[in-house]
């Protein structure tokens, strides 16, 4: 029988070998130096399939140290399958302490959400990214999108937003809303809801976005300006939940999941499970809320 300790001996700390970690860290440094720029990296083989969070794992495992406290969420929840499996894996490969508490964690890996709670300058958040190229929807050739980025040629992206407005009366991009980072590169912020997009801007924490299948990583460093693309007269809006309150905690002003109870009724609960737990226990953490423009 293969025991836990035997695994610890067989694999390097954090599963990935040291020279590959070094390579990923170098690419991360480059990505921090050029905010929003997609840096190609090695994307080594992992014991899960590419596209199932390998990009996030690469960044996490090359950044994590023995003293780190690790948290991982999937769609806002610590308890969903992807999060549980990856947490077990990271735990087994590093023996780091794990937590559900957003404030306590030093390294957070996430899929589809940035936690509601304000992250500090002691924290790094790693996003799992399925498609790092924001221009892919308007240009299918990689060599062309790279040229477009190099020359800041974003007219097609703008036209697609214009078209969306003309067809539907609003910019319909729900998740992965295109943003301009530090006034230069247009970046996709992973498929986080529009609700989370303003929270990327001028945040104290480091954001790492990593796409394992596409072998690209990009970063939003602390205190970097992130602007969602918007027109002078058609502004960016976050999801409007109005006066909806969470059925489990009674709180409002957070990103909500809509749950259908039966054929006739539905309820809303907060998507960020740790945040909901804190609201329920009466200690609502500080949040940065975006006010939709009236136009």
């Amino acid at each position, binding site marked *: 029988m293969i025991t836990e300790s035997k695994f610890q001996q067989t694999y390097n700390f954090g599963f990935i070998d040291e020279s590959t970690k070094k390579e990923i860290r170098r690419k991360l440094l480059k990505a921090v130096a050029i905010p929003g720029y997609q840096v190609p990296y090695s994307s080594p083989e992992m014991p899960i399939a590419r596209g199932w969070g390998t990009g996030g794992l690469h960044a996490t495992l090359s950044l994590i140290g023995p003293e780190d406290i690790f948290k991982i969420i999937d769609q806002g929840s610590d308890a969903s399958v992807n999060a549980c499996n990856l947490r077990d894996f990271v735990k087994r490969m590093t023996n780091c302490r794990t937590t559900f508490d957003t404030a306590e964690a030093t390294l957070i890996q996430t899929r589809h959400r940035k936690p509601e709670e304000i992250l500090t300058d002691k924290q790094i958040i790693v996003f799992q990214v399925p498609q790092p190229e924001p221009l892919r929807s308007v240009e299918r050739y990689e060599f062309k999108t790279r040229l477009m980025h190099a020359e*800041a040629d974003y007219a097609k992206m703008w036209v697609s937003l*214009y078209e969306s407005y003309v067809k539907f009366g609003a910019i319909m991009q729900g998740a992965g809303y295109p943003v301009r980072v530090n006034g230069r590169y247009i970046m996709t912020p992973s498929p986080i809801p529009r609700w989370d997009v303003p929270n990327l801007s001028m945040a104290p924490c480091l954001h790492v976005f990593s796409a394992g299948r596409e072998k690209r990583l990009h970063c939003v460093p602390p205190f970097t300006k992130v602007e969602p693309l918007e027109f002078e007269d058609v502004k960016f809006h976050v999801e409007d939940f109005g006066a909806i309150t969470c059925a489990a905690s009674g709180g409002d002003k957070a990103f909500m999941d809509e749950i259908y109870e039966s054929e006739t009724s539905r309820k809303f609960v907060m998507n960020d499970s740790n945040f909901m737990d804190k609201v329920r226990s009466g200690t609502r953490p500080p949040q940065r809320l975006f006010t939709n423009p009236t136009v």
Partner: protein
Amino acid sequence: MNYQDSDNGWLLRVRNLTKIYGDPISNSIQYTGPAHGTNICPETDAIVACAEINFDLYPGEVLGVVGESGSGKSTLVQLLYFDQMATGGEVHFKAIDEGKTNIVTLSNQRKRQARSSLMGMVYQNPRDGLNFNFSAGGNIAEKLLMAGNFHVGRIRERASFLLEKTEVPVKRMDNTPATFSGGMQQRVQISKAIANNPPLLFLDEVTSGLDVSVQAKVLDLIRHLQRELGVSMIVVSHDLAVIRMLTDRTLVMKNGRIVESGLTDQILQDPQHPYTQLLVSSLL
């Protein structure tokens, strides 16, 4: 300073513009051209698409370029519109750095900037000039957005104005050009080309794929816009009737060279070069 280089109020000055495909040798240009009846270099098979092109274009002037297919006339405008990279030569444009810079050597970013706000191009095939995945309005918006106009209301206002001007039903602004007739597509292309009021417009065989009555309408529109906006144009056509109707001055090209140039009336009435004589006498 000789006459050739003097500043006589030109808008676009082209000197020795050359485009060679393949492997050129020092003699490629010497071995090709109308005197040899070919534009293929006999030693390396390099194709000299155009060479030794010299002319000035003046503000508000309409310059015609005629010649048989393969004579290099489309290549010439594609070089000027940066669709292709020139092999050599100089192009100066008054609207860029007051004409001091050879625009052939500009960075891609500045070339795109020039294309989007200082030049317009209407291609023979609307699919080259329009993106059929976008609506007609979106295609015009692309030009306006490139020039830094990010107000949807104003973009739509301008697009409606342009479509009205080019007689495309404004109601169809949000349809893709794929659902339009050939004549309408061509008019959308013209709207897009003049969206930012560029001082320079290139028209490459704009009416060649259209039936005669639509041709007349499109030509009428171009002439009208030219008078109204005072834009300078380079009109490429193999159709002498189009050249006669639109242009003030004409260049005749053969095997990648200019063989004759002068006032359009003069060239059509009294052609000097044997090739021009043949061209004029072949007119139905």
